[in-house]
């Protein structure tokens, strides 16, 4: 129980150094399981591990003091075919307006920033309450026959992973080997599909037209000159023009 003043507030530099050191330490700990490690300046620390070693890496991390299980989830890296169900020109127009470098991220960069080579990626966050450090573990889930290959369950390492794995199962269709009760957690049992996959359409948006489409009736071109003259005449007659 320490008071919160001045304690534990390293500036970004020191924090990054600590993260670098941690990354090196953990890479050594996990050995060849680590495919890639990445420290985002002033932010988080990611480790990408080999999916085969997912379970072993988790157990090793837990034994190394990363005992707090934050969450487990997944990402589908493909792009949604429908986008945001809105007028895409609007997005494009917004992009052209300002802040152009924002959209400059290339596909390679996305991958470098922790993205993987496969469509599905598993991620979990662990935290060490003793050293106040967090680490984000990722693993690429290979696909076989159009479906993601099964992944070892880490329920025996972190009991809390139970529900998180069930959620990843129903939302992404990932299969966790060794999970005793891999059923839907939120959705009805008979629900079909995996809603957080990008190719799963969001019907609420699909059934309704976007109201943001510009619906302004233009003046017919043949009337334009005539109206213009009328307005001008009125304007001059009112004396405002003088």
């Amino acid at each position, binding site marked *: 129980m320490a008071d919160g003043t001045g304690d534990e507030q390293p500036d970004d530099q020191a924090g990054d150094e600590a993260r670098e050191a941690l990354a090196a330490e953990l890479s050594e700990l996990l050995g060849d399981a680590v495919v890639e490690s990445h420290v985002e300046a002033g932010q988080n620390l*990611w480790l990408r591990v080999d999916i085969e070693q997912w379970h072993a890496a988790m157990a090793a991390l837990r034994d190394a003091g990363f005992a707090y299980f934050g969450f487990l989830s997944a990402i589908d890296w493909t792009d949604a075919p429908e986008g945001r169900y809105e007028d895409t020109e609007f997005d494009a127009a917004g*992009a052209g307006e300002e802040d152009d470098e924002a959209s400059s991220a290339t596909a390679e960069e996305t991958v470098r920033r922790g993205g993987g080579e496969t469509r599905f990626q598993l991620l979990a966050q662990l935290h060490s*309450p003793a050293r106040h450090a967090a680490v984000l573990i990722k693993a690429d889930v290979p696909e076989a026959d159009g479906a993601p290959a099964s992944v070892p369950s880490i329920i025996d390492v972190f009991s809390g992973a139970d529900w998180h794995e069930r959620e990843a199962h129903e939302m992404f269709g990932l299969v966790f080997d060794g999970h005793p009760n891999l059923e839907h957690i939120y959705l009805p049992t008979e629900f079909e599909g995996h809603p957080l996959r990008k190719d799963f359409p969001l019907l609420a948006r699909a059934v309704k037209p976007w109201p943001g489409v510009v619906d302004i009736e233009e003046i017919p071109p043949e009337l334009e000159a005539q109206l213009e003259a009328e307005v001008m005449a009125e304007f001059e007659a009112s004396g405002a023009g003088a």
Partner: protein
Amino acid sequence: MSPPPTASALREQQAYVAAQAADARVNVELDTGDMTLNIGPQHPATHGTLRIACQLDGEQVISAEPLMGYMHRGYEKLCEVRTYPQCTTLINRIDWLGSFANEVPFILAAEQLMGVEAPPRAQWIRTILFELSRIANVSLFLGDMGVQVGALTPVFFAFRDRERVLNQIEEVTGGRFHPNFDRIGGLKDDIPRGWIAETHAVMAKMRGFCDEMEDLLMGNEIFQTRCRSVGVIPGDVALSYGLSGANLRASGVDWDLRRDANPGLAWDQVDWRVWTHPDGDSFARYWVRLQETREATKIVDQLLDGIPSGPIMAKVPRIIKVPAGEAYVSTENPLGEMGYYVVSKGGLGPFRVKIRTPSFSNISVVPWVMRGTYVPDIITILGSLYFILGDIDR
């Protein structure tokens, strides 16, 4: 003020469970049969639509399995079709009792991706509102726990005094429950004149409320009989299940993201402490929350006195586009660690948002902790774990 914590609680619980298990064996021989009792989805104790399917042997719980999804709104999917400012509207509704606190980690994650930092004044007001929503949220728990164990009056006190805090939040943000006030780069507006003095007065009232709760409920021997040694969660189990917030601190783990991973808000500018309790039982959870509410009023008081002057918005483009990248930011929300894992591919909206909600993990310990307890204990434990349904189902 603080009752002496008893470390023997765990041992008591284990002996209790062992005795119950012995009883259960006798019952198996007699073949008395089990009863399935569905607590929820509509039940006063689940304050929401949580369903707990219990196997009962008499009044004793053999297994309890929470079933949820009755309120699943799919926020992670919905966020993918919304722009960043639109997302905060949704995120408000995750933990609806402490809405402002929900917005902060998401905004911080987006700010981190954009490389923007809110000006100090905005950070301070953010922290104040954050703590106010903590007080509003937890004070309701302090009263609600009374109802869970059968005392009617505390919850009315809680509603009465929480209203004052909500009024303060509403005066600034315009929303009692859904402020939608946090913006990438700062805040929507500044605080109105006279608000600081009013909030000081409300904080004094809230400390009075905490004292009242201590006398009315926490000091009550019946309450202590009901809560002590009930639902003991040892620290290592709590960590393994990802329990966070007061639930974790009540298990003796000294961990508070406000102190340990402050993502830039003003908590490190004021003097406060983190409360822990070694017991890990329902009473410890109540005790920790009560102390935290009191501590939060002190934090708010100090922050109010020191708001720096200056702008409340950093320079951000009018149309917010977040550069490609990923960020995970979590804060110590009223219910525990709430984090947003935001993945951007450079568009107007996030590519993927993983919402790590505290209640989801907090409730996942229920099957473990409820074995061998009695039906009334289900309610005590559920109440003391303190979940918000929107926070579980998202």
